[in-house]
């Protein structure tokens, strides 16, 4: 057991020493992996932020209910109580046709236009705020409102919510595809790096095998090398993404100030970063494993 632990220690130290002996090629390898992985990691961060932003923007999912011209005050009152009593409705605001016209007049250049009108063409309306952002709920409520008496037209934003959801879904799928592709790139890079390392250490591998080194002993440094390359590549990717997010965050804050809202980017959490590093190390190990079984074990037994 102690001998086994000592092997691991020796392998790790040897691997680190080997990486340190050729710092330039190590750096290039790590950068290649890092730059490739920065794409999906960055895309993931942007997507997470968009989702947060979309929740913020459409937190108030609204439905406008326009009344028929012949609706009497009594109809309006009963409708108001019906709307308020509907499941999933958070607030109901009545906008009378006169208020709506006054609103319209306030628009730039609209006063003259409104003045030419002989009578108010606008209907009375309710603005209904829904409690959730669920497109299915909005759809159900819209249909329910349409069937109420004295309701002329219902205009919801559920179509918009659906489109946004569909877009985000598209983004998620794209990120998954991109991640899969670039994870494959990581495996390929480590595979090739380990292959070259095996070829340069051919003599050492042969001598070790002849003096009684087990297969595990011979393979171990290469597994460490692959995992370390993946891990360092993952770290490089995180640094690239965090740097980019910091720059974007500054610009976004200025944009937010102009709109009078507090816009901040969400940075990846420690848990997410740990997961990314773990995945990178595992992929590096996979590349090494593949390379070792392809090249090392073939000339072990001739």
């Amino acid at each position, binding site marked *: 057991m102690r001998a086994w632990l000592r092997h691991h220690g020796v392998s790790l130290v040897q691997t680190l020493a080997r990486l340190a002996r050729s710092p330039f090629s190590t750096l290039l390898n790590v950068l290649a992996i890092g730059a490739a992985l920065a794409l999906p990691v960055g895309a993931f961060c942007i997507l997470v932020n968009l989702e947060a932003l979309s929740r913020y923007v459409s937190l108030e999912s609204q439905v406008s209910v326009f009344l028929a011209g012949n609706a009497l005050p009594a109809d309006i009152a009963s409708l108001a109580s019906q709307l308020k009593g509907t499941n999933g409705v958070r607030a109901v605001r009545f906008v009378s046709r006169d208020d709506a016209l006054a609103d319209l007049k306030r628009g730039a250049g609209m006063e003259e236009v409104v003045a030419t009108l002989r009578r108010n063409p606008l209907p009375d309306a309710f603005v209904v705020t829904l409690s959730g952002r669920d497109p299915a709920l909005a759809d159900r409520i819209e249909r329910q409102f349409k069937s109420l008496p004295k309701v002329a037209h219902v205009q919801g934003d559920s179509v918009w919510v659906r489109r946004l959801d569909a877009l985000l879904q598209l983004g998620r799928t794209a990120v998954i595809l991109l991640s899969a592709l670039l994870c494959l790139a990581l495996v390929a890079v480590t595979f090739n790096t380990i292959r070259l390392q095996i070829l340069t250490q051919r003599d050492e591998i042969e001598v070790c*095998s002849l*003096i009684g080194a087990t297969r595990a002993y011979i393979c171990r440094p290469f597994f460490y090398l692959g995992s370390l390359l993946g891990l360092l590549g993952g770290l490089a990717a995180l640094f690239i993404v965090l740097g980019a997010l910091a720059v974007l965050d500054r610009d976004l804050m200025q944009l937010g100030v102009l709109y009078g809202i507090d816009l901040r980017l969400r940075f990846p959490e420690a848990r997410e970063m740990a997961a990314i590093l773990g995945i990178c190390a595992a992929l590096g190990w996979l590349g090494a494993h593949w390379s070792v079984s392809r090249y090392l074990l073939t000339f072990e037994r001739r």
Partner: protein
Amino acid sequence: MAIISFSQVSKRYPGGFEALKAISFSVEPGEMVFLTGHSGAGKTTLLKLIAAIERANHGTVLVGGQNVSVMRAAAIPYLRRNLGLVFQGQKLLYDRSVFDNVMLPLVVTGQPYREAARRARAALDKVGLLEREKANPVTLSGGEQQRLCIARAIVNRPALLLADEPTASLDVAYADEIMEMFGAFNRVGVTVFIATHDRQLIGKWRTRVLTLDHGRLQ
């Protein structure tokens, strides 16, 4: 019980070349045996069968009572740890010092560093290279490199020492010195099995000689 025992061993390489034909012999513990024959007679192949570098097509190869010809791949490293191998073409590692070359068999078997270093220095001392321990093997002469190989082979204190042409490319004085070293190990109980084509060298020793001729034992 014999430490090496061949019975009806044949080795045919892919392509049909038959390197060894129905070889039978045995070596007792503590013996010193020379294996000789012309170049290409099968000396190296025979040594490779003992160390499980090659496997026999027919017959049984017993080393220390273990049947090497049917040994699992995972068990081979443990067989080799009990052998001292002095290879043809030396196979030293030139990216590390003399000391680290001798340390390698002990590192591979997971010996504690302090104990390993002590044994490596003792092995280097036995072959007279202790003061060169920090040197790179490239800077050693041919004779010194061969002595380094021997130090690496004996550092694990093997019961059986196999050497393939240990005196090739050495002048007579160096060759005698190397052979004296093998003789000294044999006197302390190590079984020594040496393949060489140098008949003049063998003539100075009164030990058993096996002669191979085109894959057959004479």
